């Protein structure tokens, strides 16, 4: 995809996203653009670099010791997520690194709960079920998702998507920000078994997204379009 220059509107939107002033639908639109448009993503990053020296003017204050203890507990079992393949695609897919948490947070209908108390290390019991509700940037389309981690079974509700020759491709975006394709899904409800290798990404806080893609060449390495549906994965 050639890097086309940004329109003035998108240039403003990138600055506003970096500044943090957006909310609601505007923020969702900006976050979706950041996922799908490398030029936009690069401009957001450029703005973050321009503004970051200002953060040096904020007064420092020491956090309590519980913060480090919780960090240490959480990273102890986090190593599995880091792979060289992940890092490579992270670089290929510019700008995605900072987005996975952000995009879900920007959408009004997404199920988002407060972070669990830091003393609780998030190891879901084997019987837990993960749910997500994917919603469109305009708040129109909604898709319910349920996941059984024991069987790796993912159930998708029906959703009406704008008719097009392309078909919905489902992505899981764990905290490292790199989208992994779960393949093409049916829009009228679907059930699929997630590959063993992908199951480690189906964790609390990961983001699910659907983009409309060419079915013949799926699964793809990275999305080619703005997600039509996005939601956050929550273990309940």
């Amino acid at each position, binding site marked *: 995809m050639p890097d086309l220059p940004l329109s003035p509107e998108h240039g403003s939107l990138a600055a*506003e996203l970096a*500044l943090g002033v957006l909310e609601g639908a505007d923020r969702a639109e900006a976050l979706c653009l950041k996922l799908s448009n490398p030029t936009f993503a690069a401009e957001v990053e*450029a703005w973050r670099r321009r503004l970051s020296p200002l*953060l040096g003017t904020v007064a*420092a204050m020491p956090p309590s010791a519980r913060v480090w203890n919780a960090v240490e507990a959480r990273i102890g079992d986090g190593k599995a997520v880091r792979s060289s393949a992940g890092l490579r695609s992270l670089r290929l897919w510019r700008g995605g*690194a900072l987005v996975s948490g952000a995009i879900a947070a*920007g959408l009004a209908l997404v199920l988002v709960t407060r972070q669990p108390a830091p003393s609780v290390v998030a190891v879901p019991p084997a019987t837990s079920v993960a749910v997500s509700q994917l919603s469109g940037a305009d708040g129109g389309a909604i898709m319910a998702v349920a996941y059984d981690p024991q069987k790796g079974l993912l159930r998708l509700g029906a959703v009406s998507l704008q008719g097009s020759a392309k078909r919905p491709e489902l992505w899981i975006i764990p905290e490292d920000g790199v989208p992994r394709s779960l393949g093409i899904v049916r829009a009228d409800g679907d059930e699929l078994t997630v590959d063993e290798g992908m199951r480690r990404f189906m964790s609390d806080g990961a983001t699910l997204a659907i983009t409309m893609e060419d079915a013949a060449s799926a699964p793809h390495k990275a999305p080619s379009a703005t997600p039509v549906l996005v939601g956050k994965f929550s273990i309940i």
Partner: protein
Amino acid sequence: MGNVAEKNAVDARTTLAAALGQAGAGDVSALRRVYDLTSAKLFGICFRISGDREAAEDILQDVYVKIWRRAATFDASRASPVSWLATIAHNAAIDWRRAQPRYDAAPQGAFDAVADDAPRADDVMVEDEQRLRLLACLNGLEQQHAEAIRSTFLGGLTYQQLADHLQTPLGTIKSWIRRGMLKLKVCLGDA
């Protein structure tokens, strides 16, 4: 004198970049060094934006887990380590605010003038050159535009919150910030 301070700042930056590199290779003790050097500063950012000490600690916890996962992608030729870390903290705190509309009231102190806490010269956060350039460019803007940019960015405010606070129409606030940001980009020399 100046040379000593400058050397200390450069040393601190080099130490931090090296620790980040080691954390990226999976060294937990290196992440601890990053934490020791930066947690007070990043906590200040999280607290300023969330306005709640407990929430800020939860956010900060997420910030260091993110730093751990992304440390291998840090590129010292593109960003200073401190700016890179501060930006992760800022993003995480903004995400937290926007994710919970119930709590998304402007925090106390969000509208305060920016504290003029001149950093010590050997402070690891010192990036005098870049910061002075940005501050000079902000000072060159119309005062209202510069203040709107500062208070939204540092206080984690939305357009609407600043408009409510200043009792100024939303369209006016947007126009101040958009015009200010355009000028800022030109002044910083990369428009």
